[in-house]
């Protein structure tokens, strides 16, 4: 049998270049997104409007109210834990759910994408181990997500969540704990090869003074008595550090690190790896690093330069979606909706179940157990269990079998663009709706093999694939390399 795709042009799609931009800088294609881009006048203007926060933030604001712990103060989160209303791990799980739900629905897609990027770069796990601070940390990072890296770095490194996670809380001048001092250099800024062990020690000394009442009241404070004073030198940074309140010295140190050329290169490399390809060229990284330094660590100019590069344009489809990305994109592709705010502890409710879906594919958002943040290359996300578990999630979602509570799925009939349609045209229509691109001969062949339909077969609402087997049609698109990459 020959498989010649038959375009269904009434279902409009963006240009290939626009689709590529959307797949990289949003959480998945939807027809509504296409309309938004068209209204903005194309991808370029749309991207600039995204960088300017010109789209409303209502989804972020409203969905934060779905879980009581998201907007609560650390004191309240801790009190709720003690009262056995909501344990800390559950409060963090709620934060994870919220992150996925806002990625799913936000009009500020680029800000959400960048918030995720920075939350991995300045990784603090959301697994109940940093006390009541995780939601506050995530909101802090998002606030700076499109701003300047030097301001973001200061906000993140001095946040109590980071202090707890990398043991800077209660590190003292008598025996500084080196964990944060080291990872600040290796992971958050300049990277290996730029510093030695003496630099690590001084880095740790500059960071001393912060106190957190671990597992007691979680009070966060600064105690000059605990701060190590005396001259410090880390690489090219030197400071008298004579003031018992070391926060001024710390701010100067972090500013130095943020503006260091090695930091510029690492940030540029990570951005290029996230948005261009697993192995971006040295030329691109160098150029982005220059833009970063020339703009005082401002992020927006770097993103604009990245999107304008020819390397970005020629990198289509090369990035593999991580498990949370796969799950959120699947919800978006299927047009599945969250129909009610979840009760916090109801794990079958869609807005909570989305987290367990992500877990079953291999990773929850911010669930990575090491301080380097989740890996971001195809080799890391091509394993057996990831592949098979993704297919499982796609199938149960395509069938609307799980989750069911607090969830709205499209009916099979609603996918038919007209009462009677040839199967090959229907395949093209679904490809345009789900992928934002027309079908291929391969897609048509797979759809025929998966359903037993012939390309010319006429499909109506009474056809068996619509009545009983629509999930088998949808999985063809979700289980494709197109859906599992971006």
């Amino acid at each position: 049998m020959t498989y010649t795709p038959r375009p269904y042009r009434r279902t409009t799609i963006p240009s290939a270049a626009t689709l590529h931009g959307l797949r990289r800088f949003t959480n998945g294609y939807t027809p509504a997104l296409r309309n938004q881009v068209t209204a903005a006048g194309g991808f370029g203007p749309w991207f600039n409007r995204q960088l300017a926060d010109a789209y409303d933030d209502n989804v972020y604001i409203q969905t934060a109210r779905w879980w009581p712990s998201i907007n609560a103060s650390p004191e309240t989160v801790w009190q709720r834990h003690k009262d056995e209303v909501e344990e800390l791990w559950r409060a963090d799980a709620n934060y994870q759910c919220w992150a996925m739900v806002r990625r799913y629905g936000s009009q500020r897609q680029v800000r959400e994408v960048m918030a995720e990027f920075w939350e991995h770069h300045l990784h603090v796990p959301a697994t109940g181990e940093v006390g009541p601070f995780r939601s506050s940390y995530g909101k802090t990072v998002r606030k700076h997500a499109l701003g300047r890296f030097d301001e973001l770095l200061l906000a993140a490194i001095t946040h109590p969540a980071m202090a707890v996670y990398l043991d800077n809380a209660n590190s003292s001048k008598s025996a500084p704990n080196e964990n944060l001092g080291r990872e600040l250099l290796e992971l958050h800024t300049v990277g290996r090869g730029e510093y030695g062990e003496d630099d690590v020690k001084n880095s740790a000394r500059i960071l001393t003074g912060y106190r957190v009442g671990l597992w007691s009241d979680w009070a966060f404070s600064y105690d000059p008595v605990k701060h190590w004073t005396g001259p410090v030198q880390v690489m090219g940074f030197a400071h008298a550090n004579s003031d018992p309140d070391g926060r001024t010295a710390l701010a100067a140190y972090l500013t130095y690190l943020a503006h260091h050329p090695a930091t510029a290169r690492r940030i540029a490399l990570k951005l290029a790896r996230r948005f261009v390809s697993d192995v971006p060229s040295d030329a691109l990284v160098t150029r982005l690093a220059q833009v970063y330094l020339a703009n005082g660590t401002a992020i927006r100019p770097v993103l604009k330069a990245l999107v304008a590069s020819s390397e970005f344009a020629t990198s289509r489809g090369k990035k593999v979606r991580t498990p949370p990305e796969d799950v959120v994109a699947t919800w978006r592709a299927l047009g599945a909706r969250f129909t009610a705010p979840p009760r916090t502890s109801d794990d079958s409710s869609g807005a909570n179940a989305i987290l367990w879906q992500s877990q079953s594919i291999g990773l929850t958002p911010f669930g990575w157990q090491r301080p380097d943040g989740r890996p971001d290359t195809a080799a890391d996300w091509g394993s057996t269990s990831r592949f098979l578990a993704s297919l499982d999630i796609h199938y149960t979602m395509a069938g609307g079998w799980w989750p069911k509570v607090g969830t709205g799925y499209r009916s099979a009939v609603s996918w038919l663009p007209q009462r009677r349609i040839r199967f090959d045209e229907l395949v093209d229509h679904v490809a345009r709706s789900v992928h934002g691109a027309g079908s291929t001969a391969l897609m048509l062949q797979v759809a025929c093999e998966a359903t037993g339909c012939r390309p010319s077969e006429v499909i109506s609402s009474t056809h068996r694939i619509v009545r009983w087997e629509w999930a088998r049609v949808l999985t063809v698109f979700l289980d494709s390399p197109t859906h599992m990459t971006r």
Partner: protein
Amino acid sequence: MTAASGCAEGCPEFTRMSRRGLLRGSVGAGVGLTAVSAFGTAFMETSFAATRSAPAVLVVLSMRGAVDGMSLVVPHGDPVYYAARPRIAVPSETLLAKDGFFGLHPHLAPLLPLWDAGQMATVHATGLPAPNRSHFAAIEEVEDADPGSAARVGWLNRLIGRDSYTNPLQAISFGESVTPVALAGPQASVAVDTIADMQLAGADKWDTARRRPKSMRTMWAGAPGPLGVGARAAMQAIGDFAPVRAVSATPANGAAYPSGDFGKAMAAAARTIRGDVGADVIAVDYGSWDHHADLGPLAWGQMQRMTTEFARGVAAFFTDLGPLAAKVTLVTLSEFGRRTKENANYGLDHGYGTAMMLFGAGVKGGYYGNWPGLTNTANADLLVTTDYRSVLAEVAVKRMGASSAQVFPGFQPETVGAIL
């Protein structure tokens, strides 16, 4: 210092455990249950690429996060050990299997039968040839084990690549869906969280014409990149894994695994060996041992909890295997060790040398390694006297029949003596 104050429900480890438990429970009650009730028993494909039996099995247990070898294999004969760790040293009188210099952490007690049978060895002061205190760079270096090469090919990938057999089930990693660096490379391998994951959704009893596997093979036959490679390996492995699914999930010989991810991974490893699907290499990740804080004294702390879990898991694994243990060798490794001196938080910062352990087939029991002597300065490390590759090479050559040059290019191993 608050960490010592009565670790009950407020402790981080409690939080982690309860969370993990619920995560698993949720998935089971949600996805799993629905899938079963909607589709019945999972469809099993017949094998189309026969596997062969594995003559010897190497299990590599990665103690991630840089384990403190001096807590596991305690150098009680070095007085600096006690001077440098006034709060967290393991008391000499509590040690097991003591000789004049070393002793085992008391929570390793479940491993004493293996020790007494001469099937447990330790090699102390092992590590990379040069200090590298970065978790991320060090573990890459350890697992890559080919310092001269820029190619990201792990030593286990080279080990399974030495012959013409290329089934993806030749190497399996359990417990993580991310393939470890040691297995990265041209030879396909399988990384699975649990044995139950090894099925193709939709290939169920209603798929009578077997459209699902056929259509998926068509879809992914030419897909490029690691995702395509992984997809094809997964679809082949589903069929070839059938003998493992046929093995009872109940551990044999009364073996009792600890609850949690580590116990599950070790149970899955034993079940896979029993299924005999040609897995020469099984990798298990167990971490994190990154104990900057709350490593703790013997009365409490992360080291004690994790050592208990480790010992129970390894002991249960060999009990479960029964006679099959005669072909299984387990080796532990970690990216580096910890400092000699304890820090302010009942913990240890990043150090250098650590202890490796070997168990099972071919192991010549006892304490190995050259002790360099400790120094009690603020930043002193346990120095490395044995390159970790010498230990691994001994296993690869004597147990797996590989050549050291194939697996560790450009490296001249020294004799350790821990493998017969």
